[in-house]
């Protein structure tokens, strides 16, 4: 289920030079799983902007977004107290499986949805290891937040300026029994080559509607055509056609 509603900005601040954290207050009951996303209407922009739910409770939604274009720029300039028209509860979200030691692998702005996922997994009694991959030290965000969940948190940077030098796959630890990942396609390819267990990938696609009506975001899977926005964004490793 999904719903359109008005949300008020109660926090909007930079975490790095280009990644911002925004906290919104309003109805959150349509958000039912980690890895779901919301779709934000911005003044003067035709299409909504899809952004993953990073965290949510009874009446707040937290998102982390990177300024990459006009829409996200506009978001970064909004003030606390301003309102946004948002569709919430979109997408399938991650499935909480009965794994004990899952790997959570996030690259860049693929990190946000893993936060709420991590919380749920911990609640479920699992002991995740989190790998957060960035290009360089200045881009690192949310490391502390993951650590405060009491989980093993590894950071990689491509240039080695912080944490483990290299790609997320260079931080792979042994003994994991499942994986969840969100991030850019090259990272997915590297994970697919290295991972030894079953797992879930969260995809991105340009969207017309975000709720399954336009067929703008379709992809082929082994078993059927799926819409990233409605049947995804999360797909199981087993069904994906690379």
């Amino acid at each position, binding site marked *: 289920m999904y719903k*359109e509603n008005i949300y008020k900005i109660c926090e909007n601040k930079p975490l790095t030079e280009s990644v911002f954290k925004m906290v919104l207050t309003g109805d959150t009951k349509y958000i039912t799983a980690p890895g779901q996303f919301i779709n934000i209407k911005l003044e003067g922009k035709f299409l909504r902007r899809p952004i993953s739910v990073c965290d949510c409770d009874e009446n707040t939604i937290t998102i982390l977004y990177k300024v990459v274009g006009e829409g996200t720029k506009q978001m970064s300039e909004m003030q606390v107290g301003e309102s946004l028209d948002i569709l919430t509860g979109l997408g399938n979200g991650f499935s909480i499986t009965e794994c004990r030691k899952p790997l959570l692998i996030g690259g860049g702005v693929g990190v946000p949805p893993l936060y709420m996922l991590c919380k749920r997994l911990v609640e479920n009694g699992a002991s995740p290891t989190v790998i957060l991959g960035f290009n360089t030290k200045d881009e690192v965000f949310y490391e502390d937040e993951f650590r405060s969940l009491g989980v093993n948190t590894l950071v990689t940077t491509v240039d080695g300026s912080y944490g483990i030098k290299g790609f997320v796959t260079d931080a792979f630890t042994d003994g994991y029994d499942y994986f969840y990942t969100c991030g850019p396609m090259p990272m997915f390819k590297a994970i697919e080559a290295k991972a030894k267990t079953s797992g879930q990938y969260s995809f991105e696609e340009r969207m017309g*509607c975000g709720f399954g009506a*336009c067929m703008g975001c379709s992809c082929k899977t082994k078993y059927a055509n799926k819409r990233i926005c409605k049947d995804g964004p999360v797909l199981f490793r087993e069904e994906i056609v690379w």
Partner: protein
Amino acid sequence: MVDLSVNLAGMIMDNPVVPASGTFGFGKEFKDFYDINMLGSFSFKGTTKEERFGNPTPRIAECTSGMINAVGLQNPGVHHVVEHELVEMKEYFHKRVIANVSGFSVDDYAYTCELLDKEEQVGILEVNVSCPNVHGGGMSFGTSAAAAAEVTKAVKAVTHKPVFIKLSPNVTDIAEIALACEEAGADGICLINTLLGMRIDINKRQPVIANKMGGFSGDAVFPVAVRMVYQVSKACSIPVMGCGGVSSARDVIEMMMAGATAVQVGAANLVNPYACKDIIEALPIECEKLGIVKISDIIGVID
């Protein structure tokens, strides 16, 4: 009380508002937002003889006041539509629906329409000769009067339902093509489909859309749509279903004054899933402000 009902080639509708094909799926995604039985009708996602995946992604690009899509007629094929979608639809939509049909040959169109002709739920066949997103077919029928007429004749031969031909705006003389369809037996004209458009990702130095070009629609195209509805409704004597850039009750009224008997709402549904509900609720209020007591009175009032 404003009378919003219209008679569209024999199909009586409670109001003139019709979600446009491809922006409303089979209605399933919208019934969770509101009771879609309040709609005049709706035009379901274009179907074809065979199942189609459509074009590679990205299929969507944003534009100022509009969007480009290059879905490429993704659909499960007419057999699946008849056997599954229409059966399911009975449960949540209790009015007659508009069946949007595409093809890659005249025979394709006839085949698909013949099947849909048997479906009681189908009130009107909307024959799309204008999809810009499929190579070697589709749009080419809509850019030639002779080809559009040929499709019309072939479809009329296999159905007793009213046939509307949905035309492409990417032509030099829209009235000529509409007239050819009328002469070939069409019961109505639907227009406009999308304008052919393109956007480039200047960071990546490549088109935003994998297919390079796509169909441009949304608020931005409204003045072109109003113009073509006007031209066609003046040239033809069959009813026109107006479409293109409609996003408010006032837009609906403007398009009806230009000559439309019913008005389709496309891209607006994608951005505001309540678009049609909002419009239908605002229509009586806007009509009252303008002294309109019966909305059908304003159809084509412009000289």
